[in-house]
């Protein structure tokens, strides 16, 4: 439902350092986020997640901006809290709430909630042999539920999205078999003018070291490396229709680290257009896989055949 600026979830440097230290000390025990066969798709930090699941995650991001006029944003810092719940094995709903702190030029800082958002996702295709999945999503941003001070719109919007994840492990690519990609294409329809409709596209390329060690060749890499998945994401938001706004694009190179039932990811946020900010931002995310930690209670689908 949100664009890259809204996805710019920020994190204080000290918290990032603490989490980084914690993951280096933690024992290596692989966990999972979303899977198609033996392929794990790690949680993305800028793109929306590609399949329904039971999880809770917190995303922090900070992005400098080019404030030119008094009162304009110099830096946005966001904390997102997201809860995903499966209804059935293939159908889930996501609840997303963001809090934004905004530093402004020649004006006091301000803060407030962004609009509430909910997304229903359905896993339409799951092809384990080809490490592929396709999901369909319908998201709703509830207008006028956030604070105008931090840019929340009083006008709601609805987004239809297609998500695709594909691993290359079924192809004869040797050491490139740990590669996988995921992509999303969405169309957001505003409830009314003047809010523009948006085309939202995202792409992530990732190289899974756990896949390398477990499926391709055991290099016996040291522990911190063994559970890492380097990845690079890009997310582009383009107004549908000329003169309705500007394109916003961000590139996020980073790393995901998987533990038993949790994942930690950290990425740089490089704005590719002026609308996406000025200067390098940082985003970090901690996922708790409720379906792993509480598989027989809150982590199971509400309607489960098992």
């Amino acid at each position, binding site marked *: 439902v949100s664009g890259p600026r809204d996805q710019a979830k920020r994190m204080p440097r000290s918290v990032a350092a603490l989490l980084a230290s914690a993951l280096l000390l933690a024992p290596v025990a692989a966990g999972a986020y979303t*899977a198609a066969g033996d392929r794990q798709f790690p949680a993305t930090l800028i793109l929306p997640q590609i399949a329904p699941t039971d999880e809770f995650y917190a995303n922090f991001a900070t992005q400098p901006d080019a404030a030119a006029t008094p009162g304009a944003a110099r830096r946005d810092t966001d904390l997102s809290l997201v809860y995903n719940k499966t209804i059935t094995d293939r159908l889930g709903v996501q609840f997303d709430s963001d809090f934004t702190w905004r530093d402004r030029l020649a004006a006091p800082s301000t803060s407030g909630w962004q609009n509430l958002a909910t997304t229903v996702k359905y896993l339409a295709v799951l092809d384990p042999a080809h490490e592929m999945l396709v999901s369909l999503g319908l998201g709703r941003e509830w207008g006028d539920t956030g604070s105008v001070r931090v840019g929340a719109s009083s006008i709601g919007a609805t987004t239809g999205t297609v998500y695709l994840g594909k691993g290359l492990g079924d192809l004869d690519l040797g050491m490139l078999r740990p590669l996988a990609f995921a992509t999303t294409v969405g169309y957001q329809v505003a409830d009314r003018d003047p809010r523009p409709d948006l085309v939202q596209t995202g792409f992530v390329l990732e190289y899974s070291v756990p896949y390398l060690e477990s499926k391709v060749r*055991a290099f016996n890499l040291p522990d911190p490396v063994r559970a890492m998945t380097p990845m690079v994401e890009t997310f582009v938001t383009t107004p549908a229709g000329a003169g309705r706004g500007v394109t916003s694009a961000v590139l996020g190179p980073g790393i995901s680290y998987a533990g038993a039932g949790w994942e930690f990811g950290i990425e740089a946020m490089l704005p590719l257009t002026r609308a996406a900010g000025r200067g390098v931002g940082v985003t970090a995310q901690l996922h708790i896989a409720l379906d*792993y*930690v509480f598989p*027989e209670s809150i982590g199971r689908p509400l309607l489960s055949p098992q």
Partner: protein
Amino acid sequence: MPRRLGLMLAMAALLTALPLRAPAAASSAGLVVGVAGRCVAETGGVERPLKLGDPIAVGDTLVVPAAARLKLRLSAGSVISVASGTRLTITAYAAEAGHREARLSLAGGLLRAVVSAVAGPSRFEVDTATGTAAVRSTDWFVEAKPGSMQVGVLAGSVSLESRATGREVTIPARWGARLEAGRDPVPPRLWTPEEFANVISRTTLH
């Protein structure tokens, strides 16, 4: 005198512990509670057909050919359902006074183990050529194939350890994981209802 008493106590303890040790080739591990097709037990090169109520002993290798199935109840209450095309050896088994030590060796094929809870220390392990799956009490599946194995868990949790790298993953209920020879375990993932339905149907004895 206290020294003699200590010696006697030590001997008594040793004698008590002996049944827990492996070479008890003839010690009973359980009974056949279901059989379909011509299943056999091999012990010391001697083959005997299995029928309902037959005892199963440590050292027996159970051969369940294609189109056959076998169900065992072990002496501590655990139930093992063996799918067709499976070869399983009872390597070690002891269960008494709330303790349990079980080690099975799965050369190939699929089994379902509903492992009962016991009050005391418990080890219940299934070895394959590629790794070891260990549980305390749970309902789970383990399948061995040439060069790989996989575990699926219906209830409880199972640890799966690679024989080659020593790496281990914990698999909770509703999840499964694979292990390929010489490598780390593949990270666990949620099994689909279809995957569970497949292994349940293959191990169910009608």
